[in-house]
């Protein structure tokens, strides 16, 4: 009897030992990437090594040595800072047609107190699919009303929304547009003008309340819509203004200057038409998607492709976004088209690394490969803009994330599928 029990215990332990872990997980630790071509973005291209420990880059240079680190051979490989998408919906939108999976568009015109960060779904299937293409960080934004809420900069790894936070949240203003909404917007020119004027008045009236509230010492009552914007009214926090049409951009510039608001403009599809004004008032721009149709039927066919380059040449600080919910992974290709149509390769890389980091005020942490910054980078075997390039390693917060997603699992399973059981009649 006793031997039987011992046998059973031994068998069970053996079974436990034999059960190998089937899921690959991200691992933090001490890593040394050796002999790689490191695209630091801020310090040129270094042929050398990167040493990371925990979540931080400890050293970047040649011939680094560390016996306790896990070595990753970077020979014939390149390292880039993790790409940053400065405007999208990843984590807030799962399936487009299923409205209850969409968490970015709350009811109401004035909802600036909505915080996208808490609504981010860390388990969203979109997250691994995004990071395997080298996009490690994204600014995910609410939309809908005039003040839809605060967008959140998040890293593409974490088990809770707070642990994904990359240290920036920003208020969004959807500037009342004087243009047609889309191809099926059949309002008359007069109606469009009237609707815009109505919305503009709403905005101005609301901002009066916000300004007044911000000046109060001890305001009564629970007014989250007003209190949340005090930091913008006081010039302490930035306001991201979504605006695209030329006239609207110029009016928005006047408005933010008049209200002494520290603004970032987003969208800016017609920025190339007013690039000098944007540069003159030092307004940073987040633009995209680059892979889009021109805003006017009369525009040259490549207007969206050349937009970023024209603004950058006029002196504007430009970051690129996808504005996507399903394909944030296409950020590098958006940047590539901008590069190919006037922005140039170097500036295009900056537009998805150090520029957004600067714009979001987190360039002490991310956006380049430098000692002391967060270990957010990826390793690949060629130009990350080219399709044939393969990304072999992705590091987020120093975690070595498996370069896998549901879409790669499906590839593995179905490339060479067995016949299943076939019923013959």
């Amino acid at each position, binding site marked *: 009897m006793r031997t039987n029990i011992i046998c059973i215990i031994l068998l069970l332990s053996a079974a436990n030992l034999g059960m190998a872990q089937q899921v690959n997980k991200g691992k933090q630790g001490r890593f040394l990437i050796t002999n790689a071509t490191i695209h630091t973005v801020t310090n040129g291209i270094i042929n050398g090594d990167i040493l990371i420990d925990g979540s931080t880059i400890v050293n970047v240079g040649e011939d680094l040595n560390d016996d306790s680190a896990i070595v990753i051979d970077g020979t014939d490989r390149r390292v880039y800072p993790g790409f940053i998408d400065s405007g999208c919906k990843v984590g807030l939108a799962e399936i487009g*047609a299923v409205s209850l999976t969409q968490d970015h568009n709350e009811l109401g015109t004035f909802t600036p107190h909505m915080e996208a960060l808490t609504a981010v779904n860390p388990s969203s*299937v979109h997250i691994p699919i995004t990071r395997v293409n080298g996009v490690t960080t994204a600014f995910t934004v609410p939309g809908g009303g005039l003040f839809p809420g605060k967008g959140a900069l998040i890293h593409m790894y974490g088990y809770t929304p707070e642990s994904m936070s990359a240290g920036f949240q920003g208020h969004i203003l959807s500037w009342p547009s004087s243009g047609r909404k889309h191809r099926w917007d059949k309002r008359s020119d007069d109606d469009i003008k009237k609707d815009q004027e109505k919305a503009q008045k709403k905005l101005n009236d609301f901002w009066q309340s916000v300004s007044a509230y911000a000046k109060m010492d001890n305001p009564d009552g629970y007014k989250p819509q007003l209190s949340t914007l005090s930091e913008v009214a006081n010039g302490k926090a930035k306001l991201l203004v979504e605006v695209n049409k030329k006239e609207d951009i110029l009016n928005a510039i006047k408005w933010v200057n008049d209200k002494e608001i520290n603004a970032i403009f987003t969208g800016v599809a017609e920025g190339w038409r007013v690039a000098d004004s944007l540069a003159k008032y030092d307004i940073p721009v987040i633009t995209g998607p680059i892979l889009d149709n021109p805003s006017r039927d009369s525009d040259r066919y490549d207007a969206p492709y050349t937009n970023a380059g024209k603004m950058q040449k006029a002196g504007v600080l430009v970051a690129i976004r996808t504005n996507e919910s399903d394909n944030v992974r*296409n950020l590098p290709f958006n940047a590539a088209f901008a590069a190919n149509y006037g922005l140039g390769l170097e500036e295009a890389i900056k537009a998805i690394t150090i520029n957004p980091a600067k714009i979001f005020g987190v360039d002490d942490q991310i956006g380049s490969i430098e000692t002391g910054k967060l270990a957010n980078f990826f390793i690949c075997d060629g130009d990350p803009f080219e399709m044939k390039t393969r990304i072999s390693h992705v590091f987020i917060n120093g975690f070595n994330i498996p370069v896998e997603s549901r879409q790669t699992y*499906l590839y593995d399973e179905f*490339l060479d*599928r067995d016949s299943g059981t076939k019923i013959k009649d």
Partner: protein
Amino acid sequence: MKNLKQYIVVTFLSAICNLANAQPTGDILITNGTVITIEDGVMEDTDVLIRDGKIKQIGQGISVSGVETIDAEGQFVMPGIIDAHSHVGLDAVNEATNPVTAEVWVGDALNPYDIGLYRALAGGVTISHAMHGSANAIGGQCETIKHRWGVLNPEDWRMKDAPRTIKFALGENPMRVHGERHDVAPRTRMGMEQEFRRSFAAAVEYKAAKEKAAKNSKGLTPDYSLRLETLADILDGNIIIHCHSYRADEIIMLMNVLEEYGVDKICFQHVNEGFKVAPELAEFGAHASVFSDWWAYKFEVYYSTAYNATILTRNGVVTSINSDSRELIRHLYHEAAKTQRYGDLTDNEALRLITINPAIQLGIDKRVGSLKVGKEGDVAIFSHHPLSIYATPTYTIVDGIVRFDRDGDAGDVRVDIDPTSEIPAFYESSLHNHEGEGCMQGVYLHSHSH
């Protein structure tokens, strides 16, 4: 003598008709490019001569006088790109009033003024399959069009004698439009199957009634029904079915129904789960026209993979990559290249996805889809290899006529300008509503949702 007079008159009249021929063709010589023929390899420093809209010669050192010449030195010359799924250039896309509308035809609604057609040319696309939408189980007939920008008669955009095609649709769209919105079957995938069965059965009866009446001189022919005529044509193999589909099970369902009725000309469209039943598709001989990486916009595409085109190709299914979008159509060369990131297709395999394969799926592969002597002079020229992210389209040629020229682009190329409009057409760059732009256009006329 009388016969000679008649002969002269007829010849004279035909000559005048030819002068008025508005499906124009041209002569052009492209020199010194890297010519990607698709079916006969890649040739460097090679010339392509097009005469009267047909490829006359491919070789080195072609010399000919009096022909417009394009110097393609350092550039890449490939067949014009073919988009097997598009709604650009159509004034109407969805006759969403009945689950079966085989009698309608998008050719009645061609719009050659659509600026999207020029922008497609600017992306190297010379032919698109202008399709009915996906609101119905059996939709309307589609039209293969050649992008003759500047030609104003819609009739002259049709690719003459291209095989007839028709749109079928499976899955959420027809069920949402008819079952959910109007309480008209089908509401489930079970009901979808029965739509096809009853339609084919009705066509069989119609054909039988006509044949019976033909044999009996005193018999009554059945009432003429263009819907039943078209369905009968499908059963006779005279129309290629292009079926919007996503889920693996519904794809299998339709193949089984078609097999029972002896129909085998089918190209599945979108077919996001095609990779799950690639061997079955290959065995049936069904084709697949897919997105490069669109997914997650509906539940039925939640389990997609960007490796779809690669898996289908590797399992022997004739696969193309399409756009179903006014935006994607502008860079199908980039979309095709994605199979080299999501998979390992070779350069030739990837380029086939946007040239000879869609040509096969549209039944026009004897005429276009590769650069071969005798084929039509549809060419796209790029600054770099078309699969490189740095490729810029420089010339697009249709039937030997330059329809897009990057250096000579006039900027504002509209052929239809509304003089009364003050607000220029301007569309907020919003979240891409994948199907609002594509297959579901015109369905919800009063509530357009993003």
